């Protein structure tokens, strides 16, 4: 077994707001191996983005990591200095966001922004940085990269901007790439181009990827391992084939059953009743109790732990307390 590149252990990130403490990420543990692609799925508000911002050291006030460890190659990122964190960020760990326009500075040209990042992290000269930038733009499939180099972000389409973000993120050969909904705002044709690009990168560079998405189609086509989050916690964690074939958490099953299937002749949609509870509103029992069709009285009084029901398959649900059952 390969060693973990990233290990997140019992991470808790809370927001201290006027209306009290919001436990957005509440005891999350998982690990990513070198070259592994992992998906984090779950409905909006389940804590996916806060988890990734925590890893990047980008949770701003009033949010705070209140407990847990984030080990990157053995170093705990929750305790290192801001200076060391900045060095790591963009160099060894890079991130791409959902809306590239908000993460690119509108006042500077694309070229300026990529070469700045290359200069900062690789001690390259101005000329070297420019050559490398154009090479990166070409690599991510941008036609006429010299022209795009001197364009401003608003002059580019959404798909182009996302390519620029990827070029920037990859310019320093990061070991870990965190992609938060990288294709959600794009058309499917452009999404397919970007996913193909990411697939090639995985092959060429052995980069580990943490892909946050709510599209189960993207999950099925891209990743090795899946983490399902619900209300700030991991509720199921296993390989991609098992998740789709034999989900063991009622929430995972609900998500799969409510997804329209483009490839099936007939698809009846089940749905999960109700909505995700606001963080911290369910204080007793299982957090999925209000929407779970299989809940029993125990689910309303005691909170289940994330438990390994068989090797490499973890589930947080009372149903499997005395061994795995079919759901």
């Amino acid at each position, binding site marked *: 077994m390969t060693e973990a590149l990233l290990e997140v252990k019992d991470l808790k990130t809370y927001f201290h707001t006027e209306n009290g403490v919001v436990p957005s990420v509440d005891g999350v543990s998982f690990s990513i191996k070198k070259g592994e692609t992992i998906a984090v799925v779950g*409905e909006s508000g389940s804590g996916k983005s806060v988890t990734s911002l925590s890893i990047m050291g980008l949770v701003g006030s009033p949010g705070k990591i209140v407990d847990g460890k984030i080990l990157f190659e053995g170093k705990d990122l929750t305790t290192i200095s801001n200076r060391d964190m900045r060095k790591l960020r963009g160099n060894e760990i890079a991130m791409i966001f959902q809306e590239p326009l908000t993460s690119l500075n509108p006042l500077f040209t694309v070229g300026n922004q990529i070469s700045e990042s290359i200069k900062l992290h690789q001690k390259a000269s101005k000329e070297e940085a420019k050559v490398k930038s154009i090479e990166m733009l070409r690599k991510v499939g941008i036609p006429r990269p010299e022209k795009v180099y001197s364009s401003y972000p608003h002059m580019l*389409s959404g798909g182009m901007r996302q390519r620029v973000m990827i070029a920037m993120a990859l310019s320093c050969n990061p070991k870990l790439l965190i992609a938060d909904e990288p294709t959600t705002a794009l058309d499917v044709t452009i999404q397919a181009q970007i996913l193909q690009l990411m697939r090639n990168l995985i092959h060429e560079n052995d980069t580990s990827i943490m892909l946050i998405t709510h599209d189960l189609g993207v999950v099925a086509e891209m990743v090795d391992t899946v983490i399902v989050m619900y209300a700030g916690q991991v509720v199921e964690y296993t390989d991609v084939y098992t998740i789709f074939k034999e989900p063991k958490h009622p929430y995972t099953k609900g998500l799969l059953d409510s997804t329209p299937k483009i490839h099936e002749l007939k698809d009846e949609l089940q749905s999960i009743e109700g*909505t995700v509870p606001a963080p911290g509103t369910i204080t007793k029992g299982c957090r999925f109790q209000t929407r779970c069709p299989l809940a029993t009285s125990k689910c309303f009084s005691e909170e289940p732990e994330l438990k390994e029901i068989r090797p490499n398959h973890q589930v947080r649900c009372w149903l499997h307390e005395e061994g795995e059952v079919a759901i």
Partner: protein
Amino acid sequence: MVQKLEQVETQTKKEEYLLEVKGLKKYFDVTEGLFKKERQYLRAVDNIDFFVRQGETLGIVGESGCGKSTTGNLIMQLLDKTEGEIIFEGVDLSKLKGEALRKKRAEIQMIFQDPFSSLNPRMRVFDIIAEPLKTHGVAKGKELENQVYELMDVVGLDRSYARRYPHEFSGGQRQRIGIARAIALKPKLIICDEPVSALDVSIQSQILNLMSKLQKEFQLTYIFIAHGLPAVKHISDRVAVMYLGKIVEITTKEKLFDQPLHPYTEGLLAAVPIPDPTLRDQKHRIIIEGDMPSPANPPSGCRFHTRCPYAQDKCRSEEPSLIEEKPDHFVACHFPLEKGHGVLIEK
């Protein structure tokens, strides 16, 4: 010649459609600078024809900016058309005036993507749903109250929410409010512009199931606009594919998803990720390269030729028109696919 055409028409005895759109165009004036002599037009919708049968759902799909919403807004009379006819129950809507127009208009309603921006934030749920009933003088007093509460029941909103404001609801609940309002006047046609695109998948399925239930219960006809193809496939009977202001293919969903005739449709289908990891390596990967060109300056000939893997010389100079290549299967392409790759897999 003219006589001949008429004869043909009476012979085939044309089917009656609920809605028929003929040669519809919408050009936006995008001329920059006040004194430019030559005006510049963006051809958002450029000469489209289609029909919708009573009780069916017609899906409209295509990339962002291809003209889907503009088409919906034209039918809804929210935009003035540049040219063409919108025939609803046999009557050209632009020929109607006054009370007659008001009445016909009430039979076409719309549901939007972002129910938040389409619901008045200062009105309570009760008043939002009651408004169309009041303005059309359908009910008042106790009867109005009954009808509003019944509508709330029908769309699955708890009656106790009647006095709340839109911001107090989740996206899915707001969409239910929008639907209650849209069906209040018992319309015949509802234009749904991306009604589930902003929602999580579990909530999407709640809304899609609700829409199917209402369709049966009230014999509704839907035009369902979306760029999420799986949802469109789920809810539609027939599907139209748009590209740069044109309809490039239109047929039943079975034919479209199983054996597309247009290269763009084939590429669009291939781009949709399939939620089954065991199929990931078997998939036929066709990737449409590049971006959609601007509708202000569309390519010559077939508008898809700049991205089409099958383009030939003829495609760059001659524009293909939408023809019935196979029964009930219309396509606009000089070289329709003989064995187009669909996505349906029999299990």
